[in-house]
């Protein structure tokens, strides 16, 4: 997994509540058997007309935001399905960080597994960053995971919380499966006890 330490980039404002996984990556793109290549279909139905032309109004089609690496979004981002294609598409497009007041559980988890940092902030801070993001390409934002801070374009600093274990995994790019396999003896011991409940 790609490490995440510090990121300075353009933040795109996606001022919509309940952005769901069907919006992030519609199902017709879930037929792939690979992880890569989904970026071109990120937000497909909002980004392109049925004929395949770009919708000029959509934020990621505007020249200022084509290279955005951060998304600032409304409440409950990523609700809906468990499809990891959603973070894969975001990552493939180049988004490494999302800022919102809340996320759906599975999506939130999936982000960390893919080197994307989903930041949770109070409404007032999200509002402030949303306003900053609306100012376009000059409004770069710096995210520092080590110190858990966000520096806005005006130099103001906002702190955020993140689970210590998830933070460590992101900072070091750790592979969960490798970590768990080190606990193989504990899993063996647990499985030995399962004999008492043969139906399991």
């Amino acid at each position: 997994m790609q490490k995440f330490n510090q990121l300075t980039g353009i933040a795109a404002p996606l001022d919509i509540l309940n952005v769901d996984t069907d919006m992030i990556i519609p199902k017709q793109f879930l037929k792939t058997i690979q992880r890569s290549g989904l970026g071109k279909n990120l937000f497909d139905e909002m980004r392109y007309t049925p004929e395949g032309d770009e919708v000029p109004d959509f934020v990621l089609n505007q020249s200022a935001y084509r290279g955005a690496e951060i998304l600032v979004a409304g409440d409950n981002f990523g609700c809906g399905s468990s499809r990891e294609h959603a973070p894969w598409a975001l990552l493939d497009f180049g988004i490494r960080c999302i800022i919102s007041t809340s996320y759906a559980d599975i999506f939130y988890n999936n982000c960390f597994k893919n080197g994307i940092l989903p930041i949770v902030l109070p409404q007032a801070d999200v509002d402030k960053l949303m306003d900053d993001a609306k100012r376009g390409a000059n409004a770069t934002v710096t995210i520092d995971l080590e110190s858990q801070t966000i520096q806005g374009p005006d130099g103001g600093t906002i702190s955020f919380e993140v689970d210590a274990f998830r933070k460590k995994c992101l900072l070091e790019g750790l592979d969960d499966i490798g970590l768990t396999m080190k606990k193989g003896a504990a899993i063996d011991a647990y499985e030995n006890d399962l004999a008492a409940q043969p139906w399991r």
Partner: protein
Amino acid sequence: MTGTTLYDKIWNAHMVDEQADGNCLLYIDRHLVHEVTSPQAFEGLRMTSRKVRAPHKVLALADHNIPTTDRTGGVDAIADPESKLQIQTLEKNCAEFGIEYVAMDDIRQGIVHVTGPEQGFTLPGLTIVCGDSHTSTHGAFGALAHGIGTSEVEHVLATQTLIQSKAKNFRINVVGEAPDYITAKDIALAIIGEIGTAGGTGYVLEYAGPAIEALSMEGRMTLCNMSIEAGARAGLVAPDEKTYAFLEGRAKAPKGEDWDEAVAYWRTLVSDADAVFDKEITIDASDLPPLVTWGTSPQDVISIAGAVPNPADIADEARRKSTERALDYMGLKAGTPMQEVAIDRVFIGSCTNSRIEDLRAAAAIAKGKTVASRVSAMVVPGSGLIKQQAEKEGLDKIFIEAGFEWREPGCSMCLAMNADKLAPGERCASTSNRNFEGRQGRGGRTHLVSPEMAAAAAVTGHFTDIRNLKVEG
């Protein structure tokens, strides 16, 4: 010391390891796998030369992509090359890693959340995962069941565990007696309407109270299925006699002494009387009308007797904007009575409402009536066994005579990954669980309803208060 909740009990019984930071390693008893969210997980195993730790705890089948029309040509005859490749990939992966695969022509094939319980693969007190958010369905049996992403699918395949932090406990008491035609679907929609699509975030929901006890296992599955629509990690109903009666004798359920021991253990799986919940609400089922969604989020719920809401009445700007956006997408005018909204399509199916009881309920409404001329309607059973049972009862004939299409089992138009989809602007009364923009096809407009309400809409051509239809008819 206070008592423990049902969720706490299952959690504690599955903890392999606890880190100082609160992250735990949870043992996983059952893993369901489908074609869409697994290829990259198996690929990951191959790349790291890892094996599947406990192949006999995994059950795989294809449901999302699978055609629901004639299948006599087998997988090779699937028209869409990408769908075909995904299904073939699953078959190959199962063979390579030694996992049981229920093939497309197997009578047990169906939607993963229908087949699992039907086979007795789902049991009380187990931890069950699947790379699919509606894994919450299995909570109806008192199993801790939740959806996971593909990286986690790989993690479970390799280690039979999942890294999890504990969720909080939220009890939803549903009291009173549900009136005629008020189904588990209406109860689910009422709850989501009340707490919102993020209302359950960070929680495991336990559904309790007389109206939940009164539900059949099918109804409990419908309810738990939609827990994810309230943002919850999982939904639970404590197992009881109905649970055991449903499971006894199922192919993968324990037998003989094992069964007796299992039931004795399952009887302990209830929240203690003095257990403390982090959050608790009560809903009165006896007040509920049949519900229908008007917008693009499952929380956009209204009584069938109500009208499309007016954004102008909403003070909060973000909510107002999102309502305007939803009405625009749905092509609805504020103030229109829901019963005047005409529909083009009807979909009866999905892991929410495709079980035998759902089909019986819809057939009872459709019987002797005709699908309105403007409407095209389809029924997609949840599994081959349900299809077979329905045909034995003659339900297929009732549907076909009324003008419904009778299909092969699969996810079908719930998410429109196969050929079953809405055309742009088409309006559908659907028994599925999500009315997101584009869910049933780009530009398609989905209204979530119960099977009874879907059948009523099919035969009248517009949303109809099922309570009146019955009186008249």
